[in-house]
C-alpha cells in the first residue's frame, strides 16, 4: 500500500474541469515531481490532496484511508502539509509566531532550535514580522512551517519561483537533504532541473491528464520524452 494514492479524481474550479481521472501514488520516503506547462493541473492536484478543493469524484487515500472530502485542518492533522505557491506567510506575525502557530496542533512538533538548524537565517530574523521578510526568507519560513509539524508528506508548490539563483541553490540543498533523510515530498516546479535534482520519480501532466510516468533518471537521459508535456526538453 502506498502512503498516498490519488485515485481517478476529477476536480473542477467552478464550471471549468481541471483534473480528468487523475491518478498518482507516492510511496513512503519518495520524492515525486509533478511537471507540466502552466494550467496542466499541478497546483490543482496539490490543492485537491490538501482538501482546499474537494474532488467531484474519485478518491484520495492516505495509508489506505480515504481523506477526500475532509477539511484541510483534518487532513493537515493526518500529516499532509501544503507549502503553497503564494507562501501565505502571516505578515503581521513574527517569524517565531508563524512557526508557533504551525506547531500548535502537531503532536510531534520540532523544537525551534531544530528548525533553526535547517534554516539559520530564520533564527537571525525570528523577531521580524513576516511582511518584512525577503522572498527567499518567506519561502524558508513557509517550508519551515511544514517541517515543524513533522509532516509525513510535504506538498511543495513552486518553491523556487521568483527567487535568485543563489537562494534557489540553498533551498535545493535543503530539499535534497530532506529527501536523503527520507522525508516524503511532492514537488511542483517550473524549474525542471532543480526539481529533478532531488526527485526520484516524475509524473508529467498535460491538460489535467497524466501523460508521463517514470523515474527522474529516465527523463534526464531522454530529454525528448518531456517535450510532449513540457514544451521544452528537460
Amino acid at each position, binding site marked *: 500500500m502506498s502512503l498516498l494514492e490519488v485515485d481517478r479524481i476529477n476536480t473542477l474550479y467552478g464550471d471549468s474541469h481541471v483534473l480528468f481521472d487523475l491518478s498518482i501514488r507516492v510511496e513512503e520516503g519518495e520524492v515525486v515531481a509533478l511537471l507540466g506547462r502552466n494550467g496542466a493541473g499541478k497546483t490543482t492536484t496539490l490543492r485537491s490532496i490538501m482538501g482546499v478543493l474537494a474532488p467531484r469524484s474519485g478518491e484520495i487515500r492516505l495509508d489506505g484511508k480515504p481523506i477526500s472530502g475532509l477539511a484541510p*485542518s483534518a487532513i493537515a492533522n493526518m500529516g499532509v502539509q501544503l507549502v503553497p505557491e503564494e507562501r501565505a506567510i502571516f505578515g503581521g*506575525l513574527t517569524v517565531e509566531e508563524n512557526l508557533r*502557530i504551525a506547531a*500548535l496542533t*502537531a503532536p510531534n512538533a520540532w523544537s525551534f532550535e531544530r528548525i533553526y538548524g535547517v534554516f539559520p537565517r530564520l533564527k537571525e530574523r525570528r523577531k521580524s514580522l513576516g511582511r518584512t521578510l525577503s522572498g527567499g526568507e518567506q519561502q524558508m519560513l513557509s517550508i519551515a512551517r511544514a517541517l515543524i509539524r513533522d509532516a509525513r508528506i510535504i506538498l511543495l508548490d513552486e518553491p523556487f519561483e521568483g527567487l535568485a539563483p543563489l537562494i534557489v541553490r540553498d533551498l535545493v540543498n535543503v530539499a535534497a537533504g530532506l529527501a536523503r533523510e527520507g522525508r516524503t515530498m511532492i514537488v511542483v516546479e517550473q524549474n525542471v532541473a532543480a526539481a529533478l535534482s532531488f526527485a526520484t520519480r516524475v509524473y508529467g501532466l498535460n491538460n489535467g491528464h497524466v501523460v508521463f510516468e517514470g523515474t527522474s533518471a529516465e527523463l534526464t537521459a531522454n530529454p525528448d520524452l518531456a517535450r510532449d508535456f513540457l514544451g521544452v526538453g528537460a
Partner: protein
Amino acid sequence: MPSWPALASQAFNGLALGSLLALVSSGLTIILGTLGVLNFAHGALFAVGAYAAFVMLQYTQSFLLAIAVGCGFMLVLGFLLERLIIRFFYGRPHEDQILVTYGIGIVLVECVRAVFGGNAQRVPTPSWGQGATQLGFLIYPTYRLQLIAIIATLLVGLYLVLYRTSMGLVVRAGIENPGMVGILGINLRRTFLLVFAIGVVAVGLAGMLYAPVVAVTPDMGANFMAQSFVVIVLGGLGSFPGAVVGGLIAGEIVSLTSAFNSSYSEVMLYALMALLLVLRPQGLFGSEGRV
C-alpha cells in the same frame, strides 16, 4: 471661544467616550476580522448590557457584583447567538449577515422595550465613584476618571489575550488568512464561537460601565453603533490597535467639537472619515486585502 477649563473638561469627556468607543469597536472589529461578519446587533447588545447592570443592581446592590453577573449573562447570550444563528451565516453573502444581525438587534431592543418600557432608567453611580475629583484647575466627576482607568485596564487585558496567548495567535492569523490557518491544522470554527462571545461580552460590559453616565433606554446603543462603525473604518477593518486609536480620536473629535458647537460634532466625525477614506482607504492600521 470656550474657556480653557471647559475645553480641558471636554478633552476628558472625549477620553471617556473614546475609551468606551475603543472597547465597543475592538469587539466589533475582531468579530469582523476573524468571522468576516459585520455585527449589526452590536448597538442592541450595548443596551442589553446596560439593562443587565440595571437589573442586577436591583438584586445585588453591588455595582461590581452586578457587572460580574452581567458579564456571565452576556457570555451566555453570545454563545447562544453564535450557536443558534450566527454560525449558519459564515459562508453566506454579506447582505445576509447584515440582515440577520440587524434583525437580531431589532428583536433584542424590542424585547428590552417590552419588559422595561421605553422610559429612561437610571443606574446610580457606584458608591466608590461618587463626587468629583480636583485635577489642578479642573474639577471632574470621579466615576468618569475611574471609567477611563477601568477601560484602559480591560483593553490591556484584551491586548494580552490577543498578543500573548495561543488563542490570540490563531485569531490574529485568522484575520489575515483564514485558509492558511486551516491548512496548518487549526479548525477556526471552534475559535469563532469564543471570539463572538468575547466580542459580545466586551460590548455588553461597555454598556454596563456607561450606564451610570447616561440615561438607559432601549435605543441607547444606536448612536454608539454608528460611531463604532466609523471607528473601525478609521482604524482599519480587523485591526485591534486601529480600534483603540480610532476610538480615542473619534471620542476627542466628538467631544471637542461639542465644546464649540454640539450640532457639528457628528458632522466632524463623518467628515474626518470621508477625508481618511480618500487619503488612506485601508484606515490607519489596516492593510489592503481582506475585508
